[in-house]
């Protein structure tokens, strides 16, 4: 290493700021990347990582700030422009065309041609060259991509970036859908890319993996720099502390509630989309938080309980009755209600009215032998809208015109109208403003005080710690541990979720 660090600087981002309406996603962030370096970008969900990366790729235009690549000012007009300047993205969800072959995917949009006619030999040569460099000659260029494994698909995706002559490669959760072997292979490829001088920005929630791969790290928190340094010099605990920061308890009104008998219990439950069996018990008046990384099986568990995914093994006990299968309409009759994490895709019928969306799961009170009384329904819905504070809107307006926060309140109003006793809430505060969040926390507390049982899945630790009585942490499809919320702290949950072990052994080791 004789080169001076300044020469190696590939990318410099300074004072990058970006707001979406009232929410500030980035506030004066700086980020530097050197040649041949793997730089981990860390932070909780919503900390601003993906916005920063989008600014870099050109997909998002920052409100303020400067960027330069190799000392030259960089101001991408869009992702294509970014690519031309050497910035390539490898996304979580792969972006290959499944029906095209490996070589067609790799060369898509840059096919070697002469007067508009593709030159197959030249195309094949360049594809072979890059696959050989990655030491994957076994991937056949003429095979349709849909026939490849997930790991091989990712290699094709990286090959595409290499053909683009990427100088900066952004990998967003690259291992989240890979097997262990495929992950190892990815790490080997990353090593080879480093040797070639490619700089890599590596985003992952799996901290141990990050420690292995990355040379340096930058932590973001609430859209600001929370710390950075060399990976080798920073213990895991220090990084986690930077990620979690200070917690704000004031947002979370504590409403006293009593916990009673068990209302819902899962015994060795495995749904079709789940990786392993889950056992959990939820009691009357209890708010049970479920923490874990994306893909840790939280959503899949709720879906199996609610009958949206078929159950393969195990049982769901509601009250005193044990079930091995069930459809959503049966679960609703048994007093369950589910708030989907996918508000737009599943939770709400966007083109339908507020009234329709609120009452769809329980039209009974307005119908006499199947005929609806629309006037009475409008009154009830108007009352509910008042209660959940959706203001200035007519019950007949389509849900699509509402803001994200108000849409979520409509989805919650449905559960209120349904009078569900057991509420399964999947990321109820995702993507909504702080005021709406606070209102939702207050409600969850009120519902518990009324004796309802609440399962609360969230990726935002402060709200779990602030709202829940008990928190269970999921890791790769299993429950790592379940404890009273007071026995957890942010760092402990993050460690359990990211590593799959609780901090107990670590604390015992201390004097």
């Amino acid at each position, binding site marked *: 290493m004789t080169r001076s660090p300044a020469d190696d600087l590939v990318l410099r981002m300074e004072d990058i700021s970006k707001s979406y309406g009232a929410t500030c996603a980035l506030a004066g962030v700086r980020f530097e990347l050197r040649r041949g370096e793997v730089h981990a970008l860390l932070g909780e969900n919503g900390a601003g990582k993906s916005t920063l990366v989008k600014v870099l790729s050109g997909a998002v235009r920052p409100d303020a700030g400067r960027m330069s690549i190799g000392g030259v000012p960089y101001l991408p007009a869009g992702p294509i422009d970014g690519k031309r300047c050497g910035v390539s993205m490898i996304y979580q969800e792969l972006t290959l065309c499944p029906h095209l072959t490996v070589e067609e995917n790799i060369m898509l949009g840059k096919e070697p041609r002469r007067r508009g006619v593709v030159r197959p030999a030249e195309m094949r040569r360049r594809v072979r060259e890059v696959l050989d460099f990655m030491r994957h000659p076994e991937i056949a260029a003429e095979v349709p991509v849909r026939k490849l494994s997930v790991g091989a698909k990712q290699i094709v995706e990286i090959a595409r970036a290499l053909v683009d002559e990427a100088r900066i490669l952004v990998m967003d959760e690259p291992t989240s859908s890979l097997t262990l072997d495929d992950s190892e292979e990815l790490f080997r490829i990353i090593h080879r890319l480093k040797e070639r001088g490619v700089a890599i920005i590596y985003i992952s929630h799996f901290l141990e993996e990050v420690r292995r791969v990355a040379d340096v790290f930058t932590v973001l928190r609430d859209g600001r720099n929370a710390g950075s340094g060399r990976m080798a010099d920073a213990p895991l605990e220090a990084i986690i502390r930077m990620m979690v920061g200070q917690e704000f308890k004031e947002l979370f009104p504590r409403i006293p509630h009593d916990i009673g008998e068990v209302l819902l219990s899962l015994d060795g439950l495995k749904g079709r989309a789940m990786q392993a069996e889950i056992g959990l018990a939820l009691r009357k008046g209890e708010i049970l938080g479920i923490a874990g990384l994306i893909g840790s099986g939280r959503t899949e568990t709720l879906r199996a309980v609610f009958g949206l995914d078929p159950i393969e093994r195990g049982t769901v006990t509601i009250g005193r009755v044990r079930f091995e299968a069930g459809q959503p309409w049966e679960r609703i009759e048994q007093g369950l209600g589910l708030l989907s994490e996918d508000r737009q895709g599943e939770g709400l019928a966007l083109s339908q009215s507020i009234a329709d969306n609120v009452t769809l799961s329980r039209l009974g009170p307005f119908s006499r032998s199947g005929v609806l009384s629309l006037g009475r329904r409008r009154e009830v819905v108007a009352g509910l809208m008042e209660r959940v504070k959706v203001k*200035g809107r007519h019950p007949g307006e389509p849900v699509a015109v509402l803001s994200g926060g108000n849409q979520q309140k409509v989805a919650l109003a449905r559960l209120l109208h349904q009078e569900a006793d057991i509420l399964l809430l999947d990321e109820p505060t995702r993507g909504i403003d702080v005021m709406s969040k606070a209102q939702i926390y207050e409600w969850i507390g009120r519902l518990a005080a009324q004796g309802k049982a609440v399962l609360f899945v969230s990726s935002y630790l402060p709200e779990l710690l602030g709202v829940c009585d008990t928190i269970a942490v999921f890791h790769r499809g299993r429950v790592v541990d379940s404890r009273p919320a007071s026995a957890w702290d942010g760092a402990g949950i993050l460690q359990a979720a990211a590593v799959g072990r609780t901090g107990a052994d670590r604390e015992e080791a201390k004097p």
Partner: protein
Amino acid sequence: MSGHDKARIKILLNWLAPFLGLILVIALFSLMPEVRERFLRPANFKSVATQSVIVALGALGMTFIIISGGIDLSAASNIALSSVVVAYAVNVGAPPPAALAAGILCGGLVGFVNGGLITTLRLVPFIVTLGMMGIARGVAKWMAGNQKIDAPLTWINGLMAKSPRPSWLLLAPGVWLMIVFAVLMAFVLRRTVFGRHVFAIGSNEATARLCGIRTRRAKVLIYSLSGLFCGLAGVMEYSRLTVGDPTVAVGLELDIIAAVVIGGGSLAGGEGSILGTLIGVFIMSFLRNGCTMMGWPNYIQEIIIGAIIVAAVGLDQVRHRRAA
């Protein structure tokens, strides 16, 4: 202007938009001096109404299917099959009410099979009903021995008579049936639990499932209901022709679908209305009627109706984009 007023005006505009098209078509021919007098005569309106019955009945059921996000390409074949069944039944000496019931139930059965295949095999409606289009047409030809079935005249043939008996009816019984069923179906769609479920399934099937709607059962019901209307349309077809003709109504499914779409139905599901559909039917009927009176050749009608479909859906899109 408050949000409430704005919402009301928007709802009113949505309701009025299809009417404008119909008024425009009628106004257009009323302004043509060479046909004005004949076109505006009550007798002409009566005959347009009678000519609309078969497409309208088929379109009532199709409205439910399209709102639920589906499609039925077998509607016209089903109409032909049902008309053959009625003729067959009358021919073998069944009393007219029984023949009528047989035709309607045959249509319902075809719809039930469509719905059953779509939900149990999880196939897309386009494919299932494309297959059924061929199957129903084939069965109709088979039943009729590949020719027309002649049958003795019964009161069924009076259902589509241009001058109805008794004369105080004013319109053919078939037209009255169309009106009664349209009112009834509009009520079912707007004001019943089943109707709300149809909209919910078409708007977002995942949401419908999440809200505990038994989507499969509802779909079988929707396709069966639509089949029953095709059966009734088949009865009217037989009534009009006085024979069971297995080759009748070829391509009529596209007229039926066009009527629903011109009337504001969205092929993506979640939108549509009975009133809109009826207006769509009448827009097409008046156009055909007026073009024929003008002595314009058939191909002009086809070009105009094709353009109207694209324009109606295009306008709808523009309206939606502005609303969003």
